[in-house]
C-alpha cells in the first residue's frame, strides 16, 4: 500500500558523502554537541551548520498524499538528517522588568514561504493574549484552570507595536493586523496580518518586530509567580504554512499545545543581575553590567524558545552522552536534581539508541519551585520543566518518570514536529509509550510503585486509565475536541501508550521498537501525520499490527475477550442401535470403558470490533495446561480439547499481551471458583494491625 518515494537527490548524495567526510566537522556518527562545540570554538558555527553535504529534512509531507515507504535505511543513525530545513528564524532581544513582570521585546523574524503557493497574509500566534481577560478561548473554557487550580489573577497580554517588512517598502504590516482571532471574536491569540503583496513561493521576507509582553500570574505553563519566571509562548510567533499553502493556525485552547516551523533562534535576554537564567539553546555570551545580566542563547533546528529566571535557582551541570545537561532546581531539592540527572543520562542513551541520537549540544531541565507547579511538566526544544515535592526522589520514581516523559518529547514533538493541536496523540501518546519503555528499562516491574511486597508497573496504571475511557471516543482527534482534560489524558496519553504496548506484546517488542525508530529517524525535523506513523508500523510490523493500531487509535475500535460456558464431560464409547451389514446391533452404554478420557470445551468471545490475536490457556484437573492461539477472526471461537484429565479452567491471554482488553475479569472461565485465601489473609492481617493501633 505504501508508495516508494525516493529521497531527493541532494540528500541522497549527501548521505553517502557525509559518512566519509569527517574533516568538515561533524560526521553523522558524531554527536551534535561536537558539532556546536567545534563551531563555537572556531566562530564558524553557522558555516558548519550550513554545510552543504549534511542531509537536511525536507518538508513535503501532506496528509492527502499516500505515506511514502521509509525503508530500512532509517533503522539506524546513518541516514539521520543532521539539520532541519530552515523556514523561520528569530533574532530577538528581550528585556525583563522583574517588578512590573513585563518584557520589552524587539528583533527580526526571517520567514521563507516554503509552500507551493503565494502567501497574501501571515498568521501570528499571540499566545499571551490567552490570559488577557476571562472571555478568551483559553480562560472561558472550564478547563482553563486545570493546572493552576484557579483562573488568571493577574492578566497577561502581548502588544505588538510594529512589524516592518523592509522587502515591502518598509511598511508596518501590523497596521493591517486583525484585532481578533480569525474564528473567535473574543480571542486575540490567532491573528491574521494582510501583506501589501503576496510572498512568492520560495521567497524570504524579514519582519522587524517590536512588542511588549505583560506576563500573567502562571495559569498554565507561562508567566510569573512571586519572584519566579517561566516564560514560554512570549513572543509573536508565526504559524506554520503547509506545503499546499494552508496556514495551520488556531486560537490558544487550554487542551492544545503548539505547531511551528523549524528554524534558528538567536535570543538575547536582559534580566536583573541577581536572576539565574535558563533557556532554550546554547548560552554563547554573558555580560553583567549596571545591575543587569545579558545572556545570549543560540540554537538551530528548533521550533520554539522558552526561558526561565529565578534568583533562588541552584544548579547542577554535567556532560552526559556528549550533551551538556544543566539542571536548575530550588534549594533543598538536591536529591531531585540527582534523580533528574540519572534519568536524563538513562534517557539520552535509551531514546538515542531507539529513536536516533539527540542532536543538540545542550539540555536544560527546570525544576520549578513547589509553589509554581503549573509551570512544571512541559517540553520545549532543549528545555524541559519537571516538578515534584523536594522529598519525591527519596520515596518514589516520580522525578525520573516526569523527567523521562518530558525528555521523550525532545523526540516526539521536538524532532518529529507533529501538529500538537490536530494530533496530540502523536506527541503525547508516543512519548507516553517511550517513557514507559524507558522507565521499565530503568526500574523493572516496580517502575510505578515499589514497596516491600508490592510492585506496580506504570503501565498497569495507564491500562486502567485507558480501559476506563475505552468507549468514550476516538484517540486521534484534535486537542480542542476532547470534552475534558481527563478524557484527553485517558485517551491521548494512556490509550495510545497501551495500544502500542499491546502491539509490542502481541507482535513483538523488537518489531515495534524498530518501527518507532524508523519513524522517528525518517521524520526527524519533519511534520508527519497519523498516516505516516501507521504506514511505518505497517511497513515494519505488518498489516495486522497496522490495522490494529489504525482501528484502536483512528477509528475508536475496542476489544474485550470473554471466556464462558466451560464444560468438561467424560468421553463415552458409542452406545445405542447400530445397523451393520444388515443386522441391527444394540450396544449398551459402558461409561467405565470411556471413563479415563474427557472432552473439554470453552467458548471465547471477542466483543468489540478490534481484531487482535490472543492466546488461550486451558488448565486441567491434574494441573497440566495447554496453550492455544486464536487469530481473533470472527466473534466467537470454540476451544475443544480431548484430555486424560477434565478441563477445569480457561484463561484468555494468560501472559497479559492484549493490555487494551477492556475487562480482564471476564477473561477466565473456571469450573469451580477458588476461594480468595490470599486476599482474606492480607485483609485480616491488615485489620488486626489497625485494631491494635487504633483499637483499645
Amino acid at each position: 500500500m505504501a508508495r516508494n518515494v525516493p529521497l531527493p537527490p541532494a540528500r541522497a548524495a549527501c548521505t553517502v558523502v557525509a559518512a566519509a567526510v569527517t574533516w568538515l566537522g561533524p560526521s553523522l556518527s558524531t554527536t551534535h554537541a561536537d558539532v556546536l562545540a567545534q563551531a563555537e570554538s572556531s566562530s564558524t558555527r553557522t558555516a558548519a551548520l550550513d554545510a552543504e553535504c549534511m542531509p537536511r529534512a525536507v518538508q513535503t509531507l501532506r496528509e492527502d498524499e499516500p505515506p511514502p515507504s521509509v525503508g530500512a535505511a532509517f533503522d539506524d543513525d546513518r541516514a539521520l538528517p543532521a539539520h532541519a530545513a530552515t523556514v523561520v528564524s528569530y533574532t530577538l532581544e528581550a528585556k525583563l522588568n522583574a517588578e512590573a513582570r513585563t518584557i520589552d521585546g524587539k528583533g527580526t523574524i526571517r520567514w521563507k514561504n516554503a509552500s507551493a503557493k503565494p502567501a497574501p497574509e501571515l498568521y501570528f500566534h499571540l499566545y499571551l493574549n490567552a490570559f488577557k481577560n476571562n472571555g478568551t478561548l483559553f480562560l472561558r473554557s472550564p478547563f482553563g484552570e486545570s493546572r493552576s487550580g484557579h483562573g488568571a489573577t493577574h492578566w497577561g497580554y502581548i502588544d505588538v507595536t510594529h512589524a516592518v517588512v523592509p522587502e515591502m517598502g518598509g511598511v508596518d504590516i501590523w497596521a493591517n493586523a486583525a484585532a481578533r482571532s480569525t474564528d473567535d471574536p473574543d480571542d486575540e491569540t490567532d491573528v491574521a496580518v494582510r501583506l501589501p503583496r503576496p510572498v512568492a513561493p520560495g521567497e524570504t521576507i524579514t519582519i522587524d518586530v517590536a512588542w511588549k509582553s505583560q506576563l500573567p500570574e502562571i495559569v498554565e505553563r507561562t508567566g510569573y509567580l512571586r519572584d519566579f519566571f517561566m516564560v514560554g509562548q512570549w513572543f509573536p510567533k508565526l504559524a506554520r504554512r503547509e506545503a499546499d499553502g494552508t496556514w495551520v493556525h488556531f486560537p490558544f485552547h487550554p487542551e492544545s499545545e503548539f505547531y511551528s516551523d523549524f528554524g534558528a533562534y538567536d535570543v538575547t535576554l536582559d534580566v536583573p543581575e541577581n536572576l539565574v537564567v535558563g533557556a532554550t539553546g546554547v548560552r554563547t555570551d554573558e555580560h553583567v553590567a549596571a545591575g543587569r545580566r545579558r545572556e545570549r542563547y543560540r540554537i538551530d533546528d528548533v521550533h520554539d524558545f522558552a526561558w526561565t529566571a529565578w534568583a533562588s535557582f541552584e544548579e547542577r551541570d554535567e556532560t552526559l552522552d556528549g550533551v551538556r545537561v544543566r539542571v536548575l532546581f530550588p534549594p533543598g531539592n538536591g536529591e531531585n536534581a540527582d534523580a533528574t540527572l540519572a534519568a536524563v543520562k538513562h534517557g539520552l542513551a535509551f531514546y538515542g539508541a531507539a529513536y536516533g541520537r539527540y542532536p543538540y549540544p545542550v539540555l536544560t531541565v527546570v525544576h520549578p519551585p513547589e509553589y509554581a507547579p503549573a509551570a512544571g511538566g512541559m517540553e520545549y526544544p532543549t528545555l524541559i520543566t519537571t516538578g515534584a515535592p523536594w522529598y519525591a526522589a527519596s520515596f518514589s520514581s516520580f522525578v525520573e518518570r516526569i523527567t523521562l516523559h518530558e525528555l521523550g518529547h525532545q523526540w516526539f514533538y521536538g524532532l518529529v514536529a507533529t501538529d500538537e493541536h490536530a494530533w496530540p496523540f502523536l506527541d503525547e501518546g508516543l512519548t507516553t509509550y517511550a517513557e514507559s519503555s524507558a522507565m521499565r528499562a530503568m526500574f523493572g516491574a516496580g517502575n510505578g510503585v515499589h514497596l516491600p511486597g508490592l510492585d506496580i508497573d506504570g503501565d498497569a496504571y495507564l491500562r486502567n486509565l485507558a480501559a476506563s475511557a475505552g468507549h468514550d471516543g476516538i484517540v486521534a482527534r484534535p486537542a480542542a475536541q476532547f470534552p475534558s482534560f481527563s478524557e484527553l489524558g485517558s485517551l491521548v496519553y494512556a490509550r495510545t501508550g497501551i495500544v502500542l504496548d499491546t502491539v509490542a506484546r502481541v507482535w513483538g517488542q523488537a518489531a515495534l521498537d524498530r518501527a518507532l525508530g524508523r519513524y522517528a529517524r525518517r521524520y526527524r525535523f519533519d511534520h508527519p501525520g497519523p498516516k505516516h506513523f501507521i504506514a511505518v508500523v505497517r511497513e515494519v510490523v505488518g498489516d495486522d499490527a497496522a490495522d490494529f493500531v489504525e482501528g484502536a487509535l483512528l477509528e475508536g475500535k475496542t476489544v474485550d475477550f470473554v471466556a464462558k460456558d466451560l464444560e468438561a464431560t467424560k468421553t463415552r464409547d458409542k452406545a445405542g442401535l447400530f445397523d451393520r451389514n444388515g443386522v441391527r446391533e444394540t450396544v449398551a452404554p459402558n461409561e467405565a470403558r470411556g471413563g479415563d478420557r474427557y472432552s473439554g470445551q470453552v467458548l471465547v468471545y471477542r466483543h468489540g470490533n478490534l481484531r487482535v490475536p490472543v492466546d488461550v490457556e486451558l488448565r486441567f484437573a491434574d494441573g497440566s495446561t495447554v496453550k492455544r492461539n486464536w487469530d481473533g477472526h470472527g466473534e466467537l471461537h470454540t476451544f475443544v480439547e480431548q484430555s486424560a484429565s477434565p478441563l477445569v479452567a480457561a484463561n484468555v491471554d494468560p501472559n497479559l499481551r492484549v493490555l487494551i482488553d477492556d475487562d480482564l475479569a471476564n477473561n477466565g472461565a473456571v469450573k469451580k471458583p477458588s476461594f480468595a485465601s490470599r486476599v482474606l489473609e492480607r485483609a485480616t492481617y491488615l485489620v488486626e494491625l489497625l485494631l491494635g493501633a487504633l483499637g483499645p
Partner: protein
Amino acid sequence: MTRRGQDRFVASARAVMLQYGYRVVAAFVVAFPAAQTIGKIAASFPGGDRALFEPGGFYLLEALRLGGAPVPGALEGAAVVGALLAFVGLFPLAVALEVLRRPSASLADAVRRGAARFPTFAVVGAVTVLAQTAVITLASAVLGALPFHSFLNERNADGLLVVLAAVPALVVFALGVVEDLVRAELVSGAEAWVPALLRALRTLRFRPGDVLRRLWLPSLGAPLLALGAMFATTGIDVSRPGAVRISTVFVMHQLVVLGIVVLRTGWFRGALALADSAATDPGDGLAVDLNVAMSGPVPGEIEPHDAPSE
C-alpha cells in the same frame, strides 16, 4: 515454679489469648466481606486471587478498577463494623486486665468483673478519643497557619513542620498512655474514672521513669515487629501456585500479631503494678519504688480487699 508463679503465667497466657483471640475473630469479621468482594472479581483472573499479587500489579489495579462500585461500599461497611468491634473490644480488654490483676481468680469471675468495668472503660475511651481529636484538630489548624514557607525553602519549612508536628503526636500518644493507666487504676480499685484519672496523672507526674521503663519495649517493639514481617514476607511470592507460601505468610503474620499482643499485655502488667504501688503507698506514691520489671512482681501478689477468696 511456685503456685503463684504458675498462676501468673496462666493469667498472662489467658490475657494474651483473650486479646489475640478477639482480635483474630474481629479482624476476620471485618475483613471477610471486603475480601469476598475483591475475591469475586479476582475469581476469573488466571490463578484466581494469586494474580492480584503478581509483580506489575495489572490484575490488582484491574480488580480495584472493576470494584469501583462494590469495593468502596464494602470498605465503608468494614470501617463501620471495625469501629463497632473496636468498641466491643473494650470488654475482652477489661476481662484480660481483671485476669492479670487477680491471677488466682476464676475466668468466670474475671468475665463478671470485666462486664462491670465495661461502661466505665467505654466512657474513658470516649473521653480519650475526644481529647485526641481535639489535639489533632488544634494542631492541624495551628501548623497549617504557620507561614514557614514564606521565609524558608520548601525542605526546611517542611522539616520544621514535621518537628513541630511531633509535639501534638506525642501528646496524642501520651493520652493513650494515660487511658491505659486509668484502665489499670479502675481495675485496681478506683471507683470511678475521674479519681482513676487523677491517680493516673499523679503516677505520670511523679513516676515518669517507671512509666517509660515499662512502655518503651511495647511502644517500639510493635512497629518493629510489623516492619520486620513486612520485609521478611517480601521474598515469599504468593502469586505462585501452592498453599505452602500463603500458609507460611499467614503463620508469620499471626506470630507478629501475637507478639504485639504479648508486648501490650506486658505493658498492662506494668501499668497494673504502678497502679497498685500507688494504691498501697500511704504517702504520695513516691516513697516506694517497686522497681518492677516487665517480668517482675505483678499485682496479683497484692490481693485487694475485694478479691475473692480461693
